[in-house]
């Protein structure tokens, strides 16, 4: 059986897989990292988004063997060891950017890539377009967009709306 060695959330793993095993299956079933969800399994819904080499990708549409040597980050890899949430997670909490929460891990991972690729900040339109690959069946997009705008301010060192309101 093929073997794949990859780094997930900073830890190196060597795992036996079938050639047809998907990255999301490796994450969920072999490494028990079940924060990465499978929604549609057809690369449309974005519930399975993780980062590979810093880029957001859909873990349901890549073979585990294609990830040899790769550096993968999942939703479990965002918070600090002491439990401090990533600014994007914190903003999702603060702005109540979820209803059922199923799409949330993928939304957060896509949102972080989106903010990182726009160092000069993002308009609301750019955030909405940047979420094209993520579906929320609760249709809770409004607060998701607000959360991403707020997190972008924190991640990029601008004073956030919350900080301004507190003054």
């Amino acid at each position: 059986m093929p073997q794949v060695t990859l780094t997930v959330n900073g830890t190196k793993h060597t795992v036996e897989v079938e050639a047809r095993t998907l990255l999301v299956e490796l994450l969920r079933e072999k490494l028990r990292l079940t924060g990465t969800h499978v929604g549609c399994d057809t690369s449309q819904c974005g519930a399975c988004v993780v980062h590979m080499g810093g880029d957001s990708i859909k873990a349901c549409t890549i073979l585990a063997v294609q990830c040899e040597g790769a550096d993968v980050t999942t939703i479990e890899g965002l918070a600090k060891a002491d439990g401090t949430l990533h600014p994007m997670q914190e903003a999702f909490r603060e702005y109540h950017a979820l209803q059922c929460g199923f799409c949330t891990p993928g939304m957060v991972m896509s949102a972080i890539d989106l903010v990182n690729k726009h160092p000069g900040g993002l308009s609301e339109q750019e955030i909405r377009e940047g979420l094209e690959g993520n579906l929320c069946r609760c249709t809770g997009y409004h607060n998701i967009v607000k959360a991403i705008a707020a997190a972008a301010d924190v991640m990029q060192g601008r004073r956030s709306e919350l900080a301004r309101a507190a003054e």
Partner: protein
Amino acid sequence: MYDFSYHKPSSVADAVKLLAADPDARAISGGMTLLPALKLRLNKPTSVVDLSGIAELRGVKREGNTIVVGALTKHYEIATNADIKAAIPALAWMASTIGDTQVRNRGTMGGSVANNDPSADYPAALLALGATIQTNKRKISADDFFQGMFATALETGEIVTAIHIPVPEKAGYAKMKNPASRYSMAGVFVAKGPAGVRVGVNGAGANGAFRATEMEKALSANWSPDAVAGVKMDAGMMNGDIHGSAEYRAHLVTVMAKRAVANAG
């Protein structure tokens, strides 16, 4: 998905050896089309040959008045590459409209070109720009390369290695996306370049991407949206399905052509 054996060669020669030895082997690049097809068991390859480790297939460079795009170049890289944005902004913009961010982070130009999906974006652009597809064996003009729905000039054991694109004077692209799937219902790429005025159409044709020669004539005489507004496309050439009739797509092609000329730069 049926299981298969997996190979990751590091040179074109090794990849071609694997693919030529087995007609049921499939090359994978970004896998944005192949993996969904494998999941649906539409395809049962004995082996999958991963091209992503082949360094010689990477990179974008400008050579005189030609942009050379390595087959493994991802849509995101096309959309953001400084040389492409400066020389062919319509192509960079086209790449930014493919799929979604995650698809653009994996899918490659070489993979899309070799697959020739009738709704894929690039074939229309490469036809309009008079591009040349370089393989491990030969150079093929886009006109000869794209041979209808999912059909190309590629033979067994032949892979796309690079795409050579002459820099146009101006070019524009417009497409109508299916509101659910976001695939092109009708997309038109217009270009005025060294090979004259050329118009490529995707999404709409009953037999894949094609050139709209009547529009080329009209635009050669008068490069303006009005010139194509009067060109009626033949509905007999168009694809009709639950998303839109052939007549609707024929109409869309004219509308998209007008928009493409209007936004050409």
